[in-house]
């Protein structure tokens, strides 16, 4: 009952949110919503202890797949977005054969190489990928009406509602997976792969599963992005974007579900709203870099550690209610 109330309040806030913002802030909100899915899906992979530098390229695979399918075969855009996720997941499945021969640092670099190869292929083959200029004129989400609200997907507010619903569903699924025995197995693979394997866990299968699921949701995020901006090109998914995702995750902290999301929200607001409003265009990278360093030095467990400090105190006072019942 209390949960329903809380979620209703959150939904109401999210519904009202765009109306409190300026137009360009609404635009930032749309990208932020999509990025939340990127970073949350990234966390699923990190649950197994592997860090990829190819996540953003995989997101691009979803974007390219959805853009190309809707353009060439006239596929209905929402289906295209789902297919973007499927293609990204299948790509990850194919990549997992070479990549999961490696672990740790080697996987990190291997995923980077694999991603760069995909990007070079996009650049090199103008047919069908459009070369360096990429694909433009991607079909927008078709407008529709639900009676009380007219979705006009040019408007950031409409697209925010749409993407927020999609992202919320995806986050719910990610959450369910994390809290399930599968999520527990991912963590087991991370912390003691030998012991997990002795308990009958097929390590490679679970690493691959995490990689494929994470990639699938990244693909959906990419497709959401493609159908909003209407254009994608290989540089939209380069290693600099990957660095941003990585820093969101690490500055936020990866030991909780909300940590990376928190990192994404805080850093995006800081970079896109605060620093821009201050008129610090030229020094933006400098300040962003400083923030990164300071947060990793003085907040090694991420922003989530602050939240945890707060909630732990509360927990102690309420004497672990879940154990009490």
């Amino acid at each position, binding site marked *: 009952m209390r949960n329903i109330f809380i979620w209703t309040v959150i939904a109401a806030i999210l519904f009202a949110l765009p109306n409190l913002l300026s137009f360009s802030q609404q635009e930032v909100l749309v990208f932020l919503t999509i990025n939340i899915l990127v970073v949350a899906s990234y966390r699923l992979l990190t649950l197994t202890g592997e860090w990829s530098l190819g996540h953003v390229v995989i997101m691009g695979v979803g974007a390219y797949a959805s853009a190309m399918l809707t353009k060439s075969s006239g596929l209905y855009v929402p289906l295209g977005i789902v297919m973007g996720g499927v293609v990204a997941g299948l790509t990850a499945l194919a990549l997992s054969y070479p990549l999961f021969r490696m672990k*740790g640092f080697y996987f990190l670099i291997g995923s980077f190489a694999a991603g760069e190869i995909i990007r070079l292929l996009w650049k*090199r083959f103008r047919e069908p990928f459009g070369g360096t200029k990429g694909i433009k004129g991607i079909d927008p989400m078709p407008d529709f009406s639900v009676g009380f609200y007219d979705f006009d997907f040019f408007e950031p507010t409409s697209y925010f509602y749409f993407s927020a619903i999609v992202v919320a569903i995806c986050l719910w699924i990610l959450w369910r997976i994390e809290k399930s025995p599968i999520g527990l197995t991912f963590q087991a693979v991370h912390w003691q792969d030998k012991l997990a394997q002795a308990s009958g866990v097929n390590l490679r299968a679970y690493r691959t599963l995490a990689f494929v699921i994470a990639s699938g949701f990244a693909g959906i995020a990419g497709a959401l992005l493609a159908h909003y901006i209407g254009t994608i090109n290989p540089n939209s998914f380069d290693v600099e974007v990957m660095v941003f995702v990585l820093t969101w995750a690490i500055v936020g902290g990866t030991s909780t579900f909300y940590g990376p999301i928190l990192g994404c929200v805080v850093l995006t607001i800081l970079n896109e709203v605060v620093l821009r409003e201050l008129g610090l265009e030229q020094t933006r990278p400098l300040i962003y870099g400083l923030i990164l360093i300071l947060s990793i030095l003085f907040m090694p467990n991420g922003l989530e550690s602050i939240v945890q400090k707060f909630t732990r105190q509360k927990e102690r006072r309420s004497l672990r209610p879940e154990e009490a019942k």
Partner: protein
Amino acid sequence: MIELLAQTGLNAVYAASYISLVAVGLVLIFGVMGVINFAHGELFMAGAYVVVALYAQRFVPFFIAVAAGLVFVGLLGLLMERALFRPLRDNPLGGLVASIGFLMILQALAVMGFGVRMEYIPPVTQEVIAFSDKVRLPISRLYVIIAAVVMLSLLWYFLKRTRFGWALRASAQDPQAAALQGISVTLTAKIAMFIGAGFAGLAGALTAPLVSVNPYMGHSIIVTAFIVIIVGGVGSLEGAVLASIVYAFVHTFVTTFYDGVIADITGLMLMLIVLIVKPTGLFGSADRA
């Protein structure tokens, strides 16, 4: 055709020289500190800007400017060690993120200090050794080759024949055992950072008159260096040098006989194949996986 092959070979030797200087530094840092220094390309860039500031703008003799570049970037390395990597010693991922932050700062400082545009650096010399009309080795490129050979030999001597070098190798192999032997981990870390960063600065400074110096020039060299250290085996200095040579020859010949984009794909495929066949690299040992 022979001439074309000879000239391409000379081009490859030059490329191998500066790539190996950068890659060896990266390996040294990774070996001793256990951190992937993403800012290594920007250290290379910083070395080039020292030459811009001293040689191009203040007319300091070129080789003094190059030496200053080595020392200045070496000191930057010490700064990174003290401010970033030492506090984050038990957090390799944190070290990586901190180096990304440092990279952004260096880039922004270069933009603020010098602007985004390519810098002008007067030629050091226009002398060319002409083996024939079509086979030519500019002296300025010969400097880079000589410097790489000399510095790498010195490094080899230092590592294999001196006590410090022994300590460095010991702590690269097993930091805990080295600490038990009474080797100061902090000291070896300092030495590794100074040499590793200094080499990147040296390469940047030496090649500055030959390339386009701009704040974003570090990006392409870091990608190359990553490929090289993977192919060579992440912990192995000899491997890094040999892989630099292999990569430089493959890339240069493919660029000359096919095209540059195919050359990039070839380089990455080379790396991926090595990773798949022998994940520890051609010359790497099994630990540190």
